[in-house]
């Protein structure tokens, strides 16, 4: 669930005392928490509590009163002609996460900094201050204040815009202060990053994806939406990047096709991921193995299922015998295919590429399926004496003389493995073959399960069969596990 603000307030504290210059509850419902707040806390109290910490300038402001949390960032504005301290505070529910509080603090700081900049540039705040003071003297209720202020004050309008966007569930704030200073900010949601995001509520942020040169980028919003929102001054190569990306291409290919340096392509991808507009996956290929995510939505009439139906209503099954005749192409039907690990090439038997790739992309995007990766682990061989932790019989000895490792190999192995682990290596038969041992040594940094098979192949530029053969030869001390990876 995204954290939606209840209201925004602008308070000032200066020669004329503490003053609530502007208070707006946006589109919040009349019976929400926020109106309750106003019933209980009169305007002046609100101004006082929000301004009371104005002595702590340029620091995070976080105040909780019962079930409300006020988050802001007080500033002291000093020019040659006047000085005043002000605080733009957002009213949140007190149960919101520390991440959300941090995001709102950044937003308040960005707005405040822009306001100060505009004051130095065009005395924007001074004018707005006078205007808002005048309005607040004329009105009796806080509702009137916000209505009148939004109509006549630029500053109030800007704050109102930011607030309404957030209340509508868009976690991105993009406003322009005084038609000049641009403010962009992203409000982080409460969802812990380990849970695959579901796009049913458009306001959740993608989990932190890992961007690597072998990753492919999948947009979470539509291409049209994204390009519409880009500022006019946007880098033209970014447009090229957006038109080139595909779930089938890794960033290296994208950089070649779009004719931009790889480093820049990676930065673009990071940028999109940071702003919650994209996620990264391992590029879709025939050998990729997928399985249902534990969070997959198998419920027949769920919101996601109807979204799926809307998106892919016309997908027909090519091989009608493989499924019961006339079966619906519902989400649960597709998830059925991913009940057991399945490769894309196996799925191709059921659907053509034009249908399959969008569906798989959609399922990945909505966290319904996960890719299984193979990881490799170094473990002690079955009959060595163990590290003293276990007492076991030591019968078969003498026959298996450990292989003598050359000092050079030894040194190379020790770079990534412990002494004990090197002993395991020397006890295997496979280590007698020089070439195999050389390859094993070269790859020794990958034997702790920190890299998946595809990554190793990519980094070492190897053939899959070559690596699998090596793992097989060293099967005494290497074991593999297929583990679903959060992409």
């Amino acid at each position: 669930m995204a954290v939606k603000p209840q209201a925004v307030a602008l308070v000032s504290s200066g020669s004329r005392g503490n003053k609530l210059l502007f208070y707006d509850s946006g589109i919040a419902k009349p019976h929400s928490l926020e109106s309750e707040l106003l019933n209980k806390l009169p305007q002046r109290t609100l101004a006082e509590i929000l301004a009371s910490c104005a002595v702590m300038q340029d620091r995070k402001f976080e105040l909780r009163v019962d079930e409300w949390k006020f988050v802001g960032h007080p500033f002291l504005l000093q020019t040659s002609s006047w000085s005043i301290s002000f605080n733009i505070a957002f009213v949140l529910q007190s149960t919101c996460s520390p991440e959300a509080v941090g995001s709102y603090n950044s937003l308040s700081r960005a707005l405040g900094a822009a306001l100060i900049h505009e004051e130095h540039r065009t005395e924007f705040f001074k004018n707005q201050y006078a205007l808002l003071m005048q309005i607040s003297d004329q009105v009796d209720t806080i509702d009137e204040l916000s209505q009148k202020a939004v109509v006549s004050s630029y500053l109030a309008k800007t704050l109102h815009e930011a607030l309404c966007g957030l209340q509508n569930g868009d976690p991105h704030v993009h406003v322009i202060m005084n038609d000049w200073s641009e403010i962009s900010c992203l409000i982080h949601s409460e969802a812990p990053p380990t849970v695959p995001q579901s796009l049913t509520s458009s306001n959740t942020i993608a989990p932190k994806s890992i961007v690597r040169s072998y990753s492919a980028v999948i947009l979470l919003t539509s291409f049209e939406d994204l390009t519409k929102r880009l500022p006019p001054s946007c880098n033209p190569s970014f447009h090229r990047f957006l038109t080139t990306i595909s779930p089938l291409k890794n960033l290296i290919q994208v950089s070649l096709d779009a004719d931009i340096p790889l480093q820049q392509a990676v930065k673009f991808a990071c940028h999109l991921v940071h702003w919650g507009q994209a996620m990264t996956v391992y590029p879709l290929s025939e050998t990729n193995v997928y399985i249902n995510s534990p969070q997959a939505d198998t419920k027949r009439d769920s919101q996601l299922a109807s979204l799926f139906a809307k998106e892919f209503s016309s997908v027909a099954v090519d091989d009608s015998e493989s499924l019961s005749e006339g079966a619906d192409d519902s989400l649960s039907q597709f998830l059925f295919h991913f009940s057991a690990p399945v490769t894309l090439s196996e799925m191709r038997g059921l659907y053509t590429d034009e249908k399959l790739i969008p569906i798989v992309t959609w399922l990945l995007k909505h966290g319904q399926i996960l890719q299984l990766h193979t990881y490799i682990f170094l473990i002690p061989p079955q009959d060595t004496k163990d590290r003293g932790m276990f007492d076991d019989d030591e019968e078969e000895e003498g026959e298996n003389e450990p292989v003598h490792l050359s000092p050079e190999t030894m040194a190379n192995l020790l770079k990534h493995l412990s002494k004990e682990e090197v002993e395991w290596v020397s006890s295997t038969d496979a280590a007698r073959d020089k070439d195999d041992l050389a390859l094993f040594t070269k790859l020794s940094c990958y034997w702790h399960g920190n890299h998946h098979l595809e990554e190793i192949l990519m980094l070492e530029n190897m053939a899959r069969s070559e690596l699998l053969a090596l793992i097989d030869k060293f099967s005494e001390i290497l074991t593999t596990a297929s583990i679903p990876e959060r992409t």
Partner: protein
Amino acid sequence: MAVKCIFFSEFDPVAGPVISYQVPQEFPIREAFDAVHDLIITKPQLYDRLISVDAGGYRIVGCPKSIEDNRYARNALIFNFVLVFDEDTDTTYYEPVVQKLGGAFRTYELESHFLSTKSSKSTIPSILTQLLIRLNSTGICIIRIDDTNTLRLKVSPNVKDPPLVCDHHVPVFTQSSCQFKQLVKDLVAQEIIEYVNGFNHVAKISHLSEVSPVIVKECIQDLVIFGFVKLLSIFQYCNVYVPTQKLPQLMTEEELQTRCLQFVSLGDTRPKLADVFRILCSLEAGLSVKDLCFRNDPRSMSIDERKLIQFGIMEGLIHHLQKYPVLNRENSDIPTELQPLIKYLDGSHCFDEICCSLGVSNQTLDELIDKCIDITVCWK
């Protein structure tokens, strides 16, 4: 040490808001207090409200109280017992404590003028000292205030979404149950403890202990909240498990290794870590525990496969792939024997749950579902 400092602040008729007592005495809270004293000794609109504010690198949590009476100078006594934490501490556990603390002293003042009598007021520093020590050590403190009053405070986890306990869940103790038996005073818990062994599911426990299922569920829910118990799924040899991203931790964390080997051993011999890890790595979709036993013979390596699976699930090293039957169309022809099943066929109920509610075995359910071609079974 979560609570850095506790102070008692009041409105002095001459000096205004002051800190009358604080522990530890040398704690540098003065500056922060000066910045935010408006929120500690507040305006009447903020009385009795829980207020937490960040100042000077600290998070200050208090609940201002006031008693109006013309026997006080300025006709009111305003005071606040305040807890101080580091900034960015999650203070939700302590909030009820702060509220209760203020409320209790308000009562003591109303009943016996505790705060306005010199002799009793002078005991506040020692009360605060005890509070600080106990809150930071056990989180529970019982302090005798005077002959008639005892202050009892407890820092308790605040539960946003209590875990849902279902009939088919299998509770298991996170620590040895013998230890727990001596501690627990709850009557229901005492009744059901001996049946909580990591293999009995909730419905069975209720049946065995002859306690109503509703009460068993409530009791187990409490035990889960306080971290004594974890919920697992029913163990069966036809179950399928897959490794999770946490599995590699078993190779790197020594503490986890020791616990694992101790837990999964069959009899007195400790199994080898390599064997345990190899078996867990070999888990994959489509491979039931039965197949696993045929393939690896864990018992010959002195590994108890049931314990191994239990440990894997408890530590999140493996995940149980559950079957979810989905009826594709609601109005399709369904054999009469399947009629009682229909309400479970919307894709949100797993096999364990259905078996438990209908009292049928996994195999029977499988056979029933096979009879209708309109039902697909998703694993997840």
